[in-house]
Structure formats: structure tokens, C-alpha cells
């Protein structure tokens, strides 16, 4: 486990800010499918910044898995930032 505050929560909300381009969004969904990520709920919205979208989903997994998923998003070209929130927590940490 690296970088994520210790948490016993089995659910995390992940918010990804990324380029609002079809190939980037496809690739983002591909990360969820390819890494066999257990998700519950998925939403895509304009972020408020031109050319940027916000992808939000609830991850049914512990902090270690959440961090791993965040890292897979973080290295994707077109991803601008990744935030992970433990659902029993009240703090949100931006991943660089």
C-alpha cells in the first residue's frame, strides 16, 4: 500500500479528471474493464473546465486496491488528476 491514508473501508469513491476526448474516455473505461475493477455506479460529467470531463465511480474495494486503480488511471495519457475518498472518511486526497 502506498500513498493512501490507512482506511478499513471496503468502498472508495474515485474521481478522475481527464481530457474530454472519445479515445481518452474509452481508454478510461478500458482500465476498469481490463483490471477487473469491482465498481458500483459510474458517472461522467463535464468538469466545468473546457475540454475536461470528470469520471466518478464507487469502487467496492479496500484502500490498497483503490490506490492500485488510482495509479493505473494516473499513468494514462489524458488523465489530469485522480482523487480517492474512503467512503467512511471525510477527507479526499488528490494524487499529484
Amino acid at each position, binding site marked *: 500500500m*502506498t500513498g493512501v491514508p490507512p482506511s478499513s473501508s471496503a468502498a472508495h469513491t474515485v474521481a478522475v479528471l481527464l*481530457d474530454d476526448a472519445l*479515445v481518452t474516455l474509452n481508454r478510461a473505461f478500458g482500465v476498469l474493464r481490463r483490471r477487473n475493477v469491482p465498481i458500483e455506479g459510474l458517472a461522467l460529467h463535464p468538469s466545468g473546465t473546457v475540454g475536461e470531463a470528470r469520471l466518478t465511480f464507487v469502487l467496492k474495494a479496500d484502500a490498497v486496491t483503490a490506490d492500485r486503480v488510482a495509479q493505473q488511471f494516473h499513468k494514462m495519457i489524458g488523465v489530469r488528476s485522480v482523487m480517492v475518498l474512503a467512503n467512511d472518511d471525510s477527507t479526499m486526497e488528490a494524487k499529484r
Partner: protein
Amino acid sequence: MSEMLSGAEILCRALVDAGVEVIFGYPGGAIMPFYHALPDHPRLRHILVRHEQAAAHAADGYARASGRVGVCVATSGPGATNLVTGLAAAHMDNSPVVAITGQVSRPMIGRDAFQETDIIGITLPITKQNYLVQDVTELAEVVAEAMAVALEGRPGPVLIDVPKDVQNQKIEWRGAQASGAAPHRDPRALARGQSLTPGASPGSLEDGVRAAARLIAGAERPLLMVGHGVILAQAYAEVRALAEKTGIPVITTLLGISAFPDGHPLHLGMPGMHGEVHVNRAIQNADVIIGIGLRFDDRVTGNTASFAPQARIVHVDRDRAEIGKNVPVTVGIVGDARDITRRLVAAVEPRRCERWVEHIRGFVRTRAESYRGDLSPEAILASIYEASHGDCTIVTDVGQHQMWVAKLYPYQRPNTHITSGGLGAMGFAVPAAMGVHLARPHGTVWAISGDGGFQMNMAEMATMVQEGLPVKMAVFNNGYLGMVRQWQQFFHEKRYSCTPIWSPDYVKLAEAYSIPGYRVKEASELADVVGRANAQPGPALVEFMIEQEANVFPMIPPGGSLSEPIEAEPAAAGGA
């Protein structure tokens, strides 16, 4: 001064501007405008393969041998789908490849047109990035960006899909427009140097290096594990300096082989499923492991629950997402293997590990080999080493021969061992060796395959002849898909289901391609025949009739612990 140029001409110019010299490809309907423009750009040497899969493997081989981007080209539909295995292999082994595919014209996309396929969708999970070029004005910039993305950070394949009407579209051209400042590229995508301690926020690089140096200083049984990242970063001298300053013995993974000289007193060998017993035992007894540029793949670790139970692990990797992915890590350092290793060398105190090295030496087994005849893999590989005076690049395929080469060939020079490790794609060796030759035109390259893998891409002999590529081919013929047969013998009650494989007469086959062909049945013929094949100015093929049921030992059963190898035939070992 401006001129009107088509997308196809811009594509060629962008490739020339990016320094591309060799393209592996195969023409077809949707890529014809590109092929129409190509003869006007003699700097781009085109190699006409016999199947697009070979184009991708050859571009991969070229990239690994040269450190530059390998380029392959195919048409839409079947041309593009045939690239898929090669791109997946490049993706798994972090090889910088750019694939350019034709696509049906924009108005036809999404209508199931002739030879239309969603190659962007198909390749999403096996490329670092891919582009559907929607407008000719983007083309030059996309090519420049693709070349940069393929190489930077952790390298990998990138695909550019260019609709036929975009290739034909004409615009006013005002010289090279690609600024290198790619619009979509986020500099944060590049992992910066950083250290990671579990439960803590990411710290500075110096913190990580200091923590690693402290672990090394306090270790009684330390090990260096070196992977492909060391070859990609060309960190050979740094790794050697670290080993020699600290006396820590070095393990090279399958893709790390040749990153550290084989005969060096600190070199232990390859770990994992077919790793030597003493190497795996060293891992299981180590108290600190410094892993540089490897991902602790399951073929290396066996069952991760029992992997290196006493060791605290320092993991140096280019990719932040690898730290802690497969094994728990005490200190993670994100950055270039060469840079980080150089810092480690500066930070560590000189020390020796003589007792530990002596201890490992006690694990070494002299093993009864399983081949009955004298035409053993050792003898064959020794003859290739002798014939090439130890100065050639070996490209291996996938299977038993791949493990024999990995274990037995005495690599001395960096990056002279090239193989499909992560994907394990049979059929890789022959086309990849063509790419290696083009990257190293003055060196000798041997493509070593089994009789199964060779038959997958043997049509590339025609490419070698037509394009003048003097690849030397070795075929280890045991009449079986040997590695699968070995698994059947050990784990499937010797039921040799569909593993006996018939071969053509390879000597006659080679002759049909006007390539000199040889067959070796006994070890006494080796020096003469391999010497003659090696001396051929063009391609040559040597078939070695090896023991049919020879096995690769030792072997960790799939999912098993590194502590429990199979070291001999199951019957002799009391049943498996």
C-alpha cells in the same frame, strides 16, 4: 514557400522528420495512398513481410536492439488485426513500437464497410496510446507525438489509424509543423523521481535512496534482482558498479538477461519457474532484495504468498503503478533505472557479502540432465557461441528452447538476448530477428525456435531473401510442442494430447527458399555445420534433431512456491 501535400505525403515526411529509417509493412486497400507516396521518400526503407504479425514483431525486435522506435504499417481490417499479437508482445515487454494502419474513409466508419474494423477499440488495452486521425491537419503532429509517447517513460506501442480519405486529403504545407509540444500530452504522465513508503505520503527521491542504502548496509543476505528496465535505461555500468561496491550477488530475470555479464563472479542466474535451484533458494533466504526495473512477474515469484518470506524489498521502477502491485515493498523508488542506480552507488557504503555468496554456492546443484543423446541444448548453444566468437545477438522464441537458452547461453555483451517474455508469443523469433539485423546490420543474429514456433512464421524466410536479411535460424526439433508436452507429462498424466507435431523437411524447405539448409543429428557434426551456417553471407537454417522428451529442469509447478522445485523426472522424484 508553401505546397499542396496529401495526407499520405505528410505521413511519409513526418516519419522522415522523426528519424525513421526502416518500416515493416504490408500494403492493402485502405493504406494504398501511403504506399503511393512512399517511393518518393527513399530514406524510408520498407521491408515487405509475409504476414502483418511479422511486421509488428520485426518492429519490436528493431526497437529492442536499437533503442529507437520500431515502425510497422498495415492496411485496415485483416491487416490491422494481424498486428495485434505483435503489439501485445511489445506492450507486455515495454518496447517502443509505432503502428500505422489504414482505415476506411471517414464517411464509411461505423457502417461495417469492407475491411473495416475498430482497431482503436481492439488495441486499447495493448497500446500506450492510440489515435484515429480525423483531419489531415493533425497528422504531422500526431506522428511526432506518437513517436515521443512510444519512447518516453515506460516505453510501449502506439497505434495511429489513418482513414483513406485523410491520406488523400490535401492541404497547404508550410514545412514541418510538428513542434514537439504535443497538445494532448500531459507532462505529469511522466513519472518523476519519487520515493514511496507504505502508509506515508510520497517522499523525495533522496529519502528513498537513503532508506535503500540503510537497508543495504544492514542486510546480511542481500540480493540484486535486475530486469528489462536496466536494459531499457542502459544502466549496465551502474548496476555493475552497485554490485561490485557492495558485493551483492545479482539475479537477472528472463528479460534482464545480458544486463549483467554471465561469467561475473557475482552473477547467479535466472530466477523463477525455470530458474536454477540456487537462485530461487537465494531469494527464499534473502533478507533484503533490491529489484531494479522488473515487475515481479508471476513467472519470477511463483506463489507470491511464499515469495522471499524473509526479505524486505526495495523496488526501483519507472512506473509508479508497478510499486507494490505484485509484491509488498518496503521502499519504492520511482524513476529511471540508470539515474536511481547511480544515486544508490553513491549512497551505499562499500561492503562485502562473502559469507552469503559462499552460502548460496552451497545451494548449487549438479543436476542430472534429462537428455539421453549427446546432442544436448548445451552442446548446440556452445557451438553457436563458438561459431559467432561470442559476438552475436540471440533472439529466442517461446518454449523449452527459450528456457535452455536463458539458462545456458553465456551472454557477455549487454542487450544481446531478445525474447518475448511477458506475452510469450510463439512465432516471435524469426521476424524479430529480421528487425534486430536491421538495427545491427554489422552483427550476427541467430533466431532460435522450436519446431512449433518456427512453423508459425517460417514464411518470413521469403522476406529474408527478398530484402537481403542474413538471419541465421536454428530450429530445435523434438517433434513435440515440447513445453506443453512437459506440462502434460508432469501435471496431466502423460496424456500427450495434440502435442506431437509433424514438421516438413526443413532442409528442403530452406532450399525451396534458396536458403542453405543443414540438419544436425549428432554432436560431432556441430562445430562444422554451425560454423558453415554462421559463415553464410545470407540467411541460413540449421535443424537440430534433439531428444524428443527432454525436459527443462528445475521447474516450479504453476502457482507453486520457489522453495519446492521439481528437479528430475517425476518418476525418479517419486511422482509429481
